[in-house]
């Protein structure tokens, strides 16, 4: 149903920091006023909790990766549309070994990572690249908040994690990055998604989101004192400083221009990636109890094609609002 | 007509008979001392007079009517311990009888009398404290009093509620002999001065004979372990003190 008040949940991660900055800088209010709505931008510390809250209806929009959007809201019957593809990880996620510098050395090791997260997916892709399988290593579930201290313990010899923890760990001379997301470009996407029903009833909400996003991105990528100040504020808010934040940005392929993002959304790579992702989820039992195949949940792509069950589409890539932003129609 | 009449009273716990066919008439202004060996059911009997326990069979009447089903201000009690409230001062303990017993709507909601009623109650409480010799200790807490002073306080508190019957369960059992003698004098004085009917359980025969108008002894007819509790206690003796003590005629003080 049409409504006036909307809530977006975001978590601290380099690709999503613009939301917090946009709120503080008044950009959110500016665009919300323009469309005559209210947007509450809420920071949630715990990423998994933010997804759960969105899934049960506590939020209308969410920052999430492509994989988690499929595994939780979509599988949970909440039809979800990716209105903004903010970036893809281009080195931000990495497999790190201690005292070893070849990926092949990972065989037989215990690997600490957040189980069933994009790190897990990255590990699967890394292993596949050297023709190993998951059974060749032993996965130990470890909370992201404690990964940095876990690394310092002698019995942890390999981890898969994301930034800023990656740079934290790589500061240790014993740490060697042996695989990272730049080797699977475009597969780990950082999205801003909206509940499809809400979107249908209130397209203005998505327009406002796109407006906010691209104004903020233009600001933060600009090589101006204002841009630097924005980056510094975001760095501080995520617990680091300007240099740390810029290092993280360097490992992220930000789509600063809406046209770029829209083009990426329409590209066939998205379909290929989502096929890998859904098969990964299916083999780990994350597509629902007793799912007969990876086809149970349908994924609609921006070009209209559907992966899986056409009658049960719960996850949609759309380029509408990114294209609108590119065309200046917001 | 007697004030309390007990007819064919039995009390059993599970299949253990404690009291067996007790019959008893207690006149107004009597002072009955209840004696008997430990465990014979004296406390149990008092509890039934207090409506703390329910008789298994038989009838207890107060003033010709069946006694109420629960304790009330018509019957006061003094125990050997735990009779006074540790969180209230001496004066507060005595005032409590008015705070709880008065019948105004505000009082029933807040459990406290106010204004003129409070001043009147305080005056009466101070009189009572003077009567039991605690005037100087009005602002102390019970834990600051000796055992004898605590029992005097319990007496004053019970009397403040002006009960028709005062029940006492070994009220002076924990006191030292010297203090006990003092409090006996007080007890006699109070009984003479106030419209009181008293039933007192005691282990101490001199105390019983020294205070009461009538001494009643409970005893189990047969009390061998092989009985397995099939026989309860009955009234074994019922002795009127001679020469009779008469309430309000304080010859004996």
């Amino acid at each position, binding site marked *: 149903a049409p409504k006036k008040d909307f809530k977006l949940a975001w978590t601290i991660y380099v690709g999503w920091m613009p939301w917090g900055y946009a709120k503080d800088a008044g950009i959110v209010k500016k665009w919300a006023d323009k469309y005559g709505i209210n947007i509450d931008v809420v920071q949630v510390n715990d990423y998994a909790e933010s997804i759960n809250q969105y899934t*049960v209806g506590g939020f209308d929009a969410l920052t999430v990766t492509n994989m988690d959007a499929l595994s939780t809201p979509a599988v949970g019957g909440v039809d979800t549309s990716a209105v903004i593809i903010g970036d893809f990880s281009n080195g931000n996620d990495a497999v790190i070994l201690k005292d070893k510098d070849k990926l092949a050395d990972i065989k037989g090791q215990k690997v600490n990572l957040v189980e069933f997260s994009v790190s897990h997916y990255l590990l699967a892709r890394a292993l596949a690249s050297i023709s190993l399988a998951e059974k060749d290593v032993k996965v130990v579930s470890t909370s992201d908040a404690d990964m940095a201290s876990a690394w310092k313990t002698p019995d942890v010899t390999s981890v898969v994690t994301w930034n800023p923890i990656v740079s934290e760990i790589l500061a240790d001379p014993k740490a060697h990055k042996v695989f990272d997301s730049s080797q699977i470009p475009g597969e780990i996407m950082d999205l801003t998604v909206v509940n499809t029903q809400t979107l249908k009833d209130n397209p203005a909400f998505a327009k406002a989101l796109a407006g906010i996003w691209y104004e903020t991105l233009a600001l933060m990528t600009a090589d101006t004192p204002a841009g630097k100040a924005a980056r510094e504020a975001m760095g501080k808010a995520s617990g680091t400083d300007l240099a740390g934040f810029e290092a993280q940005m360097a490992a992220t392929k930000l789509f600063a221009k809406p046209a770029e993002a829209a083009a990426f959304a329409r590209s066939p790579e998205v379909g290929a990636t989502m096929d890998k992702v859904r098969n990964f989820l299916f083999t780990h039992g994350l597509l629902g109890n007793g799912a007969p195949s990876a086809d149970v949940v349908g994924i609609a792509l921006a070009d209209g094609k559907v992966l899986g069950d056409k009658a049960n589409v719960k996850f949609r890539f759309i380029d509408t609002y990114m294209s609108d932003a590119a065309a200046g129609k917001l | 007509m007697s004030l309390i009449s007990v007819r064919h009273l039995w009390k059993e716990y599970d299949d253990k008979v404690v009291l067996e066919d007790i019959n008893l008439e207690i006149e107004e202004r009597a002072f009955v001392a209840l004696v008997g060996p430990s465990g014979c059911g004296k406390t149990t009997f008092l509890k039934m007079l207090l409506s703390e326990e329910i008789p298994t069979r038989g009838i207890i009447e107060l003033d010709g009517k069946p006694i109420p089903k629960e304790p009330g201000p018509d019957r006061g009690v003094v125990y050997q311990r735990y009779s006074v409230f540790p969180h209230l001062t001496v004066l507060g303990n005595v005032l409590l009888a008015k705070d709880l017993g008065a019948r105004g709507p505000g009082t029933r909601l807040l459990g406290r009398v106010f204004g003129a009623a409070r001043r009147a109650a305080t005056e009466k409480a101070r009189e009572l404290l003077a009567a039991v010799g605690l005037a100087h200790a009005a602002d102390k807490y019970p834990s600051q009093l000796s055992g004898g002073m605590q029992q005097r306080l319990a007496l004053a508190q019970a009397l403040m509620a002006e009960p028709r019957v005062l029940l006492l369960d070994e009220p002076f059992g924990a006191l030292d002999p010297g203090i006990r003698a003092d409090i006996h004098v007080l007890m006699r004085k109070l009984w003479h001065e106030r419209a009181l009917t008293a039933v007192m359980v005691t282990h101490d025969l001199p105390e019983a004979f020294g205070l009461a108008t009538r001494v009643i002894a409970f005893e189990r007819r047969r009390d061998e372990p092989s009985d397995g509790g099939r026989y309860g206690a009955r009234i074994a003796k019922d002795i009127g003190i001679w020469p009779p003590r008469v309430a309000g005629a304080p010859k004996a003080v």
Partner: protein
Amino acid sequence: MRLVNRLPAPGWARVLALLPFVAVLVLYLIASAMRLADNPADKLLPSFATIGDAIVRMAFTVDIRTGTIPLWSDTIASLGRLFAGLGIATLIGAVLGIAIGVLPYLRALLGQFVAVVSMVPPLAILPILFITMGLGEASKIALIAIGIAPLLIRDIALRVTDMPPQQFVKAQTLGASSWTLVLRVVLPQILPRLIDSVRLQIGPAWLFLISAEAIASESGLGYRIFLVRRYLAMDVILPYVAWITLLAFVMEIALVALQRRAFPWFAAARTAQ
């Protein structure tokens, strides 16, 4: 009759005791049915059928990946850690608590320190724990022990100093040395009280266990709950929570029974005071 004097009949009391449990179940069923009518794939309040499926999957089906039944292997892992942690804490609590209670010098030395340490939030110092103990079983057990031991020490020391001083003098007039005084007089009287103290710490122990398992683990009840929380599998979380509650409740009952059996004198002595 005054409300305070009204007693329910024994049979009726048993019915009353069941009522709130039934009420919770009914409330759940209604709320669940409402959400499922809205969205049949809703994950928050799954239907009993879904929960039943999850129970069969977790408690009665061998997981092909690990070759074990998840619920049982989780339970064994968690209980092992819990008992180890509680056991170590109990030992430390008894030994140090008695020592601090009995020896004035040790009391002067450690009394204040233990009081302050018992206020340190153990979860906040986890990183230090990891570095010193590693990420394995040791650190999980240590978290439980560190979280609980200071409270047990304080509690036991307090109970020792609460013992009537006459007993200490009396034992010495019977010829006790400091050691035999502790062994024959203090320890046996503290043990049943130790059971009481440990009983109160069962809840916190589970809490620390779950937190530790959430941080780094390969098995355990807390591990599973936090793992499946990532995709909101309430059909697994709810039975796991119920199971933990049941385990904790059984532990509590077992400790009460142990106290009554092993220390028959205790209940009477406590009320006699």
